[in-house]
Structures are given as structure tokens and as C-alpha cells.
């Protein structure tokens, strides 16, 4: 899993990087809707992949985000 992505999740959802697995659901990591939207902003600027609120909220698992990087 991409290290930067893991750090992003950990910073925005206030969880430990070790708890973040590919199969983890964002809800189980404690992510709230507004935190996902904010995280998507930094995701776009970090990885240069266009995002918006609806697209961000449609991706429920960590693996969904990882797929965008590949």
C-alpha cells in the first residue's frame, strides 16, 4: 500500500497507520463524511488526481482509493 496514502488516512482520520489495511472500511477507521471530503482535497493535490465530494464519498474502502493510484 502506498505510504503517502496511509499517512494521509492516518492524519485525517486520527487513526494509527498500523490499523489501516487495504480491506479496511473508512467508516471502521472512524472517518466522518466531512473528513473524507477534506482528505480528498489533499489527495488530489498530493497525487494530482482530480476529485470531488461525490467521488470521494462513493469510495468506502481503502482499496478503492489505492486503485486510483494504479
Amino acid at each position, binding site marked *: 500500500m502506498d505510504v503517502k496514502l496511509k499517512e494521509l488516512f492516518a*492524519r485525517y482520520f486520527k487513526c494509527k497507520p498500523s490499523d489501516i489495511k487495504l480491506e479496511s472500511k473508512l467508516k471502521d477507521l472512524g472517518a*466522518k*463524511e*466531512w*473528513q473524507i*471530503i*477534506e482528505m*480528498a*482535497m*489533499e489527495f*488530489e*493535490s498530493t497525487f494530482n488526481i482530480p476529485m*470531488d*465530494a*461525490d467521488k470521494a*464519498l462513493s469510495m468506502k474502502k481503502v482499496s478503492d482509493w489505492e486503485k486510483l493510484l494504479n
Partner: protein
Amino acid sequence: MKNIEDKLEKNRQDMVIVQGEIKDIQKDSNDRKNLINTLIEDVTNLSTSQDMPKSISSKREDVVFDGILSEEITNSLGVLPASKLKELKKQFTNSIPAFPPFDKYDIFLLVALGGLAGLADFLLVGLPPKTRWVPRNEGGVVPVGWLSERIKSWEVSSDNWLSKICKVPFDNSTLPGTDAGFNPFNHRLLSFGHDPSPLGMIFGLMDIMSGGMSGATRDGQIFHITTQIPPEKLKMLLAPLLWLGHLASDVATPMGIPAPGWALTQILRVPAPGAPGEATIADVARMMYEQGYDFRHYLAGAMIPGLIEIIINTYHFIRYSYPHKAKIRENVISSNIAESYIEESQISGHKKAMLFWAHTTAAAINAGKIAIQGASGNYFSAARAINVSQWQMFAVRTVEYLVYRYRDKSLEQAVANRKIISQRWDDILNDLPYALMNDSKTPLFTM
């Protein structure tokens, strides 16, 4: 003939006697008047006196204060019960209302303004146009404001000609290698120099002159870092213009610049009431900006308190201030400085009351808009329904209202009570002839 002359002579003698008695009554009245004033002064002193006795005894209808008032005063006053003294004191202190009353035209204007403010808030201001960070299924019934949409429809690229001329060191959109949380969508909120307020100007000038960048991280930590743009002497001289020019270059970009003072919200790490997921006030304010609540929407909302101020000030000037000044110019008002001061103070108080109630109505309507949007949509959409400029003006006018409400009214009370006392003495003197009626029930003379 002799009988008529005798009767005339007798009447003249009676007149002399009556005139003498009138003089005695007037003298007696003046003495009583002085004694009542002394008594009121003594009662006032009593109420503030530290040595006030715990018990006040009264027998029959006489007032006897245990050794406080002299027997001469209480005897001279005759019948004056304690309850009457209390009533007199109440009349004395309540002779001036807190605010001059509104008439029907004032009330009509306030009600009309309230209605118009409500319509404008819902239709013209509404919600800010959505950015791509607003979910489509957010819900809510309050529409995007027509005025806000019109203002934000004028959009320029972030890379415009003015931004190339007015380059500033606090414009980094990301801070790689840090946990600051900067990205192109929030960096103008997190850097203090972008705030269109005196605070923003101070930090902006400081950053331009030092070649640094001041701000707050996404977690609320204040920082100052040096940047790649070193300070130059020319830039220092032109710093205010550079700052203004840079803000002007950013204001019409898709994200715009934050509302005045919004940068300060980023240090408020206090849980926002009712916010989901333990969001703080800083988080809510940041989401508001990221979802479209920028300086342009703030200006659209400022239209409502601005119009209220213009309309009420104009109305008040035409109806009250100008006629009062005209009377002074024509010397219609007496040269009594105290009365002139009091009238000006009351006109000012009347205007303060009108402004307070108008802004209270507009703020209450905005509270309703927030509640409606919150009930039908989500929390952050309700937050975007707040008309920040309206609440700011409401706060200012509330403070002014309260300061006037609890002003020192001693001078006004003294003048008003003097007028009441003078009027009552006139009434007594007018009634005097009838008090001395002879058996035929007609007054012996007229004043």
C-alpha cells in the same frame, strides 16, 4: 345708594382680607414645597445610607422614622404615610422611559424592513454557489442566493496578470514534508495574509517584509516560516499595495478569499455545538470556506444589514434629526442647554432602538433560515446559511442598545421631575379660588 356704597366698601374690606389669606396660603405652600423637597432628599439619602435603621415604625397615618427625620419635618408634613413616600420615589425614578416610544410609522417601517430582510436573506443571499466539495445529496430547501450567484459568476483564473505582478511570499498552496494540511483549496484560509481584514493586513505586511509566511495548520498550530521569496527593499516600500493587489487577484478565483476574520477561526479548536464527528469551530469554518462561503458571499450577505442601516438612518434623519436641528437653527427650542442635550440624547436613543430591533428581526429570520436548512439538509449546509455580516451588525447594535438602556438618567429625571412639580403647583394654584368658595359656591375671584 348708601346701601350699595356700604356693600361695596364691605366687599373691598373682604377682598383685602382674602388677599392677605392668599398670601399666607402661598407662603405656607412654599414652605410645604421646600419641606417636601427636603423629605424626598432625605428619603433618597436613606435608601443609600449605610446606617439605615432596620425598623421603620409608623403610628396612625403619621410617618416616624426612628430618629432619622426631625420631628419638625414630620409634624410639618402632616399626613404622609410610608407607602406614599415609596410611591413618590417610584414616580421620581420612573419619570423617564428607557427609550422614547415608537409611533405607528416607526413600527410600520420596522415590520416592513423585517419582511424585506427575510425575503432578501432567503432569495438574494441564500446559500453560496456550491463548489465541487459539496455532496450532491446534501439536501436542504434553501436555494442558492441570486445575488451571491451573480457576484460569483464573475470568475478569473488563479494565474491572472495581477497575481503575476503582486507576488507575495505567503501564497504557498502546499507545504510538502509537513503535516500542516495545506492544499490549493484551503491555503488562503490557513495563511493569515490572505485575510481581508486589519489582522490580515498586519500579517500580510509582516510576511512581505520578512519574506516569510504566517498561518495556522489544519490542527490549529500557529506558525511562521521563511520562504523562497526573499524580502526586497522595493517590495517593502510597496508592501501595502502588493498586499491589496494580491487579494484583488485572488478574490474572483474559483475558491476566492476567506471572509474577513475567518483566518482566526482556525485557532478555535472548540467543539462546535451539534457538529457531527466532534468537528470543532475551526473545522466547520474551514468546510464552510471550502464549500463556497468566501468573501464574495460575505459581501452578498452584507447587503441586508447595509440596507437596514441606510434606510433607518435616512428615515430617522428626515423625521427626527433634521426637524430638531431646524428648530435649533430657528431658536425655537429654548436656550436651556440641559433640555437641548436631553432632546438630542433621546433622538439618538430612539434611532439606536430602531436599529437594534431591525437587526434583531433580520438576525432572527437568519436563525430561522439556518434552522430550516439544518432540518432539511445536513449540518454544514446549515452552517453555510449563516449570514455572518448580519450577526456581526446585530452584536454591535445590541451593545449600543444596552449602553443606552443603562445610561445615567439623573439629568433627564431632574428636568422631567422639575416640570412635573411645576405643573402640579400650577394645578394647585388654579384650584385655589374654588377651595375658598363662599356659600354661593362661586369663586370669590379668578386668577
